[in-house]
């Protein structure tokens, strides 16, 4: 016979166990979600979305907004000190590989083994994935994050000016673009093409579109682990020659220090014909307080290069989950991301000026609205997405290449010379980082 006191003890233990299990269930309901994010034109759209989520689920969304100049340092400090502040971090692909390789983040499948990326999501060239074996962002890798901003590079041009000059729209090849630039070049009132030539990331990104269009890439086959350097092969040289020498002739003064703001300013003030600009800029170009040419700028897939094809380089933001927070919080973070990808939030997001990541938006009424004409160009660009080399050393490579490209632009270096020097420095970087067997491809 179990004594009374023992019975009492057992029931007490049982009661406590049941209670704690229930309360654990209740505690598993995370009350707040903390997101580190940057100030940007699409932030208001994102904020509205988080309010929607709060309304639907009751989870309080706390946004920690930092300036773009500084978000990286902030997140770096957070991950290297195992901070528990953030549940989600908005991460630019610039520093993505560094964070992936550093194991600072949680793979999404670890949080929810059943999770798969919905098929209606645009695949931004494997950003968000990381394959440790090939040391590259590849589909064979582990998924760490979801794109929250489907920003891509598009050709943005003055359709009215093209039509006035009798030129076919949209321009199909870079030669077409050059032709238009030459015809309509009228300094100092009107410039044919604007290169975002400032040293570093600006010229690197801006030139990537045309280089890829000519089939000029940095490495031979990084997805398979082949890092033979091809950045100075003939295709790259041809593309860069077209950009830095031919198109540059019809550009505005001071190209060596033109940044995104200046480039958009030239387009928006009606002083320039065309440029490669990111799609996220779309709200500004129709805003009468910002633009002198509202609704006159058209968006198109970036043109083909000789011997190549269209190419649209992606440049977006991925939201990732840091490693150091509790499992409940990780799950809550993933829940938000899952909700974010569904159609209704995506459409709302676009309406408020965000750049969607789901193709379901293409089935909405927004496609017929001229305010969102960038959507058509985005849809057309999907087969041609490409990206920069996504390895932890990419920030360093970009910095080095950005310097040489800038020098070529201001004619301190020759076109071929700048690419050769870049190849040499990339070689040193890769070898120094421990990649085996990297060589520069011989000139064919």
């Amino acid at each position, binding site marked *: 016979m179990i004594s009374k006191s023992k019975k009492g003890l057992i029931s007490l233990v049982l009661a406590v166990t049941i209670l704690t299990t229930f309360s654990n269930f209740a505690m598993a309901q995370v009350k707040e979600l903390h997101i580190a994010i940057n100030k940007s034109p699409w932030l208001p759209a994102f904020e509205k979305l988080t309010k929607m989520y709060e309304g639907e689920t009751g989870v309080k969304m706390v946004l920690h*907004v930092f300036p773009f100049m500084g978000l990286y*340092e*902030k997140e770096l400090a957070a991950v290297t*000190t195992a901070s528990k502040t953030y549940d989600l971090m908005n991460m630019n692909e610039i520093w993505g590989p560094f964070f992936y390789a550093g194991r600072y983040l949680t793979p999404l499948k670890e949080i929810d083994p059943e999770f798969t990326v919905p098929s209606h999501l645009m695949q931004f060239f494997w950003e968000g994935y990381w394959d440790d074996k090939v040391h590259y962002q590849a589909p064979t890798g582990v998924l760490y994050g979801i794109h929250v901003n489907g920003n891509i590079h598009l050709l943005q041009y003055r359709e009215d000016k093209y039509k006035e000059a009798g030129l076919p729209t949209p321009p199909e090849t870079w030669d077409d673009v050059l032709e238009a630039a030459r015809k309509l070049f009228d300094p100092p009132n009107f410039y044919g093409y604007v290169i975002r030539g400032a040293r570093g990331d600006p010229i690197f990104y801006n030139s990537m579109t045309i280089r890829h269009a000519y089939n000029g890439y940095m490495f031979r086959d990084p997805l398979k682990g082949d890092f033979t350097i091809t950045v100075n092969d003939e295709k790259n040289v041809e593309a860069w020659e077209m950009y830095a020498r031919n198109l540059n002739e019809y550009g505005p003064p001071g190209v060596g220090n033109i940044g*995104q703001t200046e480039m958009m300013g030239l387009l928006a003030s009606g002083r320039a014909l065309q440029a490669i600009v990111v799609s996220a800029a779309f709200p500004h170009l129709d805003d009468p*307080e910002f633009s002198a040419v509202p609704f006159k700028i058209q968006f198109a897939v970036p043109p083909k290069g000789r011997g190549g094809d269209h190419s649209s380089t992606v440049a977006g933001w991925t939201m990732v989950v840091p490693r150091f927070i509790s499992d409940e919080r990780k799950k809550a973070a993933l829940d938000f991301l899952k909700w974010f990808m569904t159609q209704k939030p995506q459409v709302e997001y676009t309406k408020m000026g965000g750049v969607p990541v789901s193709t379901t938006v293409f089935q909405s009424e927004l496609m017929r609205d001229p305010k969102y004409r960038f959507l058509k160009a985005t849809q057309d660009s999907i087969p041609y997405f490409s990206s920069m080399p996504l390895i932890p050393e990419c920030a360093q490579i970009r910095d080095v290449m950005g310097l040489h490209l800038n020098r070529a632009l201001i004619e301190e270096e020759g076109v071929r010379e700048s690419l050769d020097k870049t190849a040499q420095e990339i070689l040193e970087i890769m070898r120094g980082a421990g990649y085996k067997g990297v060589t520069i491809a011989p000139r064919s």
Partner: protein
Amino acid sequence: MTGRINLKKLVPSTIFFILLAILSLPFVYIIMTSFKTHLDIMLRPILFTPTLKNYVDLFFTQTSNFPRYMLNSLIVALFSTVFIIGIAGLSAYGISRSEFVWHLDKILLGWVLFLRMVFPVAFALPFYKIAQSLNLLDTKIILIVFYTTINIPFAVWMLKGFFDQLPRAYEEAAFIDGCSIFGVFWRVAMPIISSGAVATAILVFMLGWNEFLFALIITESSRSMTLTVGIAGLCQQYMVEWGKMATAATIFTIPIFVLSVFVQDYLGKGLTMGIGIKE
């Protein structure tokens, strides 16, 4: 008599006003820009239709945190200045007026100088760790502490310089009259160098007001975020909002301008030459 223009006084004044005008031109441009739309900034440099939109957006929309940032900056800069002047004043006087065992004063001065010579970037992560371990991340308190630490070197050297420049006659007189050392410091030395102390205070306040890197690293939310971080947010990835930036610059210069005027007028001048030695 009237009618005779004093050339000796006129020429320097004219030169001064010309220089002042040149120095102020960029700021005049900033003020003008704050009243323009982005389009006007690009296309119409001199004649334009003014608009208040930038001011409204920055301060009167619901989601704007700028008033909060301003308050944070004010509190942090003010408190750190008070602490700095107090601590640095004491130390500078002590160092200036006495001999130290083992040349500790030279060591102190040198150490303090090294602190100032290091690029802030190198200290960013260590300071972050300190704040994290004290659980004071995202608080104004830790910002005040850090600003005090990094700006004290300047104040110590400045005030020491002013004390060094001061002949000891006044203090010795007071001392002989029976004042304690602290009393001499507080009632004689500090007031005499008040214009120097004021200049130091203004500069130290400004250093705290305009500091960016540590504020960025430490602050997380509007609880402690300062102006400089807030202004940086106007430099967005795709575009810099020139108009709002000019507005922020204009508005945020005002508190420190007013403070400087006040501090110079009321604290700076009064007591300097008026001390007569009762001999």
